[in-house]
């Protein structure tokens, strides 16, 4: 009896239906493929018909440009050098921001005095778009790496802090009652409830921060740089090479996607309890 109730059966099987045209046409993967192919065909058509004159490269020209970049040096650096230049800025800026902002956000949620001191400053800077800092950063730190990392820190800081803060504040209050009734201390509440409960929100914040960081690095590189993917885009515009501009855009999208996958991977490692079982 106990087992039959404890092990509630989970339906793993899928209904098998015979093949038919309708089933193929309504298949999700099929529709995904149709959508992508149609997009690239349309792009190729628009480029071939020169609707934007000579300012749109054909998809294969973009791929070709990226392949060529791996073989030659562009402005003294090959493709991997440019990718690494941007990624390095991201990694440094993002980590510095996260290391300060996440603990600060947690502290703000846990301690009303810290909150009272930090909140007004934070509210003052929060609505300022990070890219607005571009020029002042150059004035302060010159055109070197420091100014670019600075902008990334500014941009990634806000979502990290905000999510860590809200992550703690939105914890189900009944969970605190559980600990209090059992005679747990404030320390138990913080370590056993606050921190683990805020993890998913913290990670959501890190993801947003990361995408903001990529926006920031691009903006900083467009303003002034000698290497990086933003530099490739800028150089493509200056020399009127649409395939280089589009290639740079694709590269930056791929790099941003990869870093966000890394953060997701880390989240899955640290929060195994988020995994659900289908059909339960």
């Amino acid at each position, binding site marked *: *009896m*106990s*087992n039959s*109730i*404890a*092990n*509630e059966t989970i339906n793993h099987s899928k209904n098998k239906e015979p093949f038919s045209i309708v089933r193929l046409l309504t298949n999700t993967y099929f529709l995904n493929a149709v959508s992508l192919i149609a997009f690239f065909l349309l792009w190729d058509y628009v480029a071939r018909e020169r609707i934007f004159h000579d300012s749109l490269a054909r998809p294969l020209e973009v791929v070709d440009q990226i392949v060529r970049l791996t073989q030659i040096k562009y402005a003294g650096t090959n493709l991997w050098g440019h990718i690494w230049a941007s990624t390095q800025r991201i990694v440094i800026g993002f980590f510095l921001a996260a290391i300060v902002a996440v603990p600060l956000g947690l502290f703000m949620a846990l301690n009303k005095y810290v909150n009272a001191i930090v909140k007004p400053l934070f509210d003052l800077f929060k609505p300022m778009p990070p890219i607005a800092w571009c020029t002042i950063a150059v004035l302060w730190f010159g055109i070197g790496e420091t100014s670019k990392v600075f902008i990334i820190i500014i941009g990634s800081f806000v979502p990290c802090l905000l999510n860590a803060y809200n992550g703690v504040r939105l914890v*189900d209050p*009944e*969970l605190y*009652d*559980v*600990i*209090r*009734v*059992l*005679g*747990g201390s404030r320390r*138990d509440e913080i370590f*056993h*409830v606050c921190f*683990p*409960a805020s*993890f998913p929100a913290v990670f959501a914040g890190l993801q947003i921060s990361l995408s903001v960081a990529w926006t920031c690095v691009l903006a900083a590189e467009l303003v002034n740089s000698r290497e990086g993917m933003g530099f490739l885009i800028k150089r493509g515009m200056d020399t009127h090479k649409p395939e280089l501009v589009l290639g740079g855009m694709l590269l930056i999208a791929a790099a941003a996607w990869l870093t966000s996958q890394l953060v997701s991977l880390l989240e899955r490692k640290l*929060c*195994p*309890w*988020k*995994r*659900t*079982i289908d059909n*339960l």
Partner: protein
Amino acid sequence: MPTQEAPVKIRVNNLTKRFGDLTVLNGINFTIKKGELLAIVGPTGCGKTTFLNCLSKLMPATEGEILIDGEEANPRKHNISYVFQEPTCLPWRTVRENVAYGMEIKRIPKRECEERANQIMDLVGLSSCADLYPNQVSASMMQRIAVSRAFAVNPDLLLMDEPYGQLDVKLRYYLEDELVNLWRKLGSTVLFVTHNIEEAVYVAERILVLTNKPTSIKAEIIVDLPRPRNLIDPRFVDLRKQVTELIRWW
């Protein structure tokens, strides 16, 4: 019933709770004997949850005292367990870790924690999903985890706030049997609050009936039926009717 001769474990003197002008609990006096399973029934909205929150010290009482073994109740010193209406598992701990959590807070040695957790999970049939996380088991299992966690600390006083109110009838009968089983095996002192009269007569040794707000105790009924109890035994039906008459608000 043997526990009716046992020494008094919990003594509640003149428990009163006011929120501003609103008196919710009005001078409640009762005792619970060691190892007794006491049910409290009352009409909806009579302040049952407030009553438990005061007993568990989550909420300060306006007046009166709650004594455990003659001492003022204190969650830090006494073992008080509380099973809430809603299942309250920590989502980031596996079923096993959730069951052991109360013992961990009470700083019970690791070996003993594991042994007791395993014993209780065996009793309630949670062993097969010991390493799953709460979001991977069903709602009824979550409530069982909370019940197991509460029993695992060998509480001086175990409070249950309509723990099975949300479950369907079949599961509820099953879990009520399980509760009685756990209680008999572990000898805990349990205070079971419910609005379900049948449930109260089925599990309890003694029932306290509450009045409407401002709440006080209207009657005490001793249930001296043998276990396992039979829902259609005429004496069972009589007792159920008797309690129903006492709280009928229609």
